[in-house]
């Protein structure tokens, strides 16, 4: 997500050559698809820890 934001900011700089823009746009699309997939498939991870078992520092 952070990377995607960075790519978009890079793209928005303007005056970048078309080849670079196309490359960035492609990367951005891949990332956004990846983010979406991650969100779609995300399953919260839960760890339960018995605090009493932890030795005091």
């Amino acid at each position: 997500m952070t990377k995607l934001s960075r790519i978009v900011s890079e793209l928005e700089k303007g005056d970048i050559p078309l080849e670079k823009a196309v490359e960035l746009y492609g990367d951005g699309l891949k990332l956004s698809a990846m983010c979406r997939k991650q969100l779609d498939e995300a399953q919260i991870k839960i760890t339960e820890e018995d605090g009493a078992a932890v030795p005091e520092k």
Partner: protein
Amino acid sequence: MPVITVTQINKYIGFILKGDKNLQGIMVKGEISNYVRHYKSGHAYFTLKDSESAVKAVMFSQAASRLKFQPEDGMSVIVSGSVNVYERDGAYQIYVNDIVPDGAGAASVALEQLKKKLAAAGIFDEAHKRPLPEMPRKIGVVTSLSGAAVRDVINVLSRRYPIGEIYAVNAVVQGEAAPDSICRGILCAEAAGCDVLIVGRGGGSDEDLSAFNAEKVAYAIYNCKVPVISAVGHETDFTIADLAADRRAPTPSAAAEIAAPDVQLLYEKIAQLERRAERSALSALDRASERFIALNARLLAQSPENRLKLSGMRLDELEKRSKTAVQHYLDRLSARLGENIARLDSLSPLKVLARGYSLVYKDGRLLASSDGLSSGDTVELRFGSGGAKAEITDKW
């Protein structure tokens, strides 16, 4: 009459006082003044007074250390104890077992005092409050794992923020072991690499929340390396944990909502980023195509085909220009010819004859004078139109 000693009389008075039920195991109301806690023995000495009178009071260290609050000068209190004599000085005083604040309960006075102390130590300072991570990776929950609070947090986060991780640390949340247990839980969650913590429990009475009013819990929250959200489940009053925390939530569910954004927002953010990327890419394309069009136009202008066409056009033009030039020349020539012809024409003798003059020829030769003519010669006459033969009859 027997003579008795000072010690004897003081002992006797003490004996009398101890035997008087009105002076033993009593409760006395008054205002504390000159409160001193002896730094070595730990005994507390003060004067209890009202508007008219005063009485000395002493509280031994064991009883004094059991107090939940710190007695202060000017405080209205009710002390429990007995009146007795301090034999060395021959002074009577109240030996105090317990002090309770008059009005507010001891616990609430203690709480206010602790709040003041911690505030003075900067534990509640706004400047120390840290921002929560925008997208936490691991959310620590320090609470009783058998309570409703942890279930609430898990429910909210599984729905809103499934990309995260919950690290739930079991802690005792009420009773004497609670403050230490909560502190350990905070350290444990911190050590497990959580980037934000929720510390709390479901709602309860004031009594149940006492662990969250403990000084050590406040320090544990303050010293925690990552931001802490308190969720003590009490709408009306702030616990010390609430004040020390970086953010306060009224309930564990609310804390979960504060801890992480809704995944729906992330979908929207992605879509928004995509739109922005697309717009930028398209404008890059536009810029490139404009440049292409401009360059292409310049390139085409230089193509052999175009140059040939240009040369052809130039040739045509030159041809046209040369044609017109020749034509002009010819026109001028013919105009001059016409002029000359006209001039020649006007000079022609025939034109003179037409005006009435005649030409005289002799033997085919035009005569300009009468010399050589003799009477009887025949001459030819030419008029403007027609001719005649004539004979000379005279000459001069």
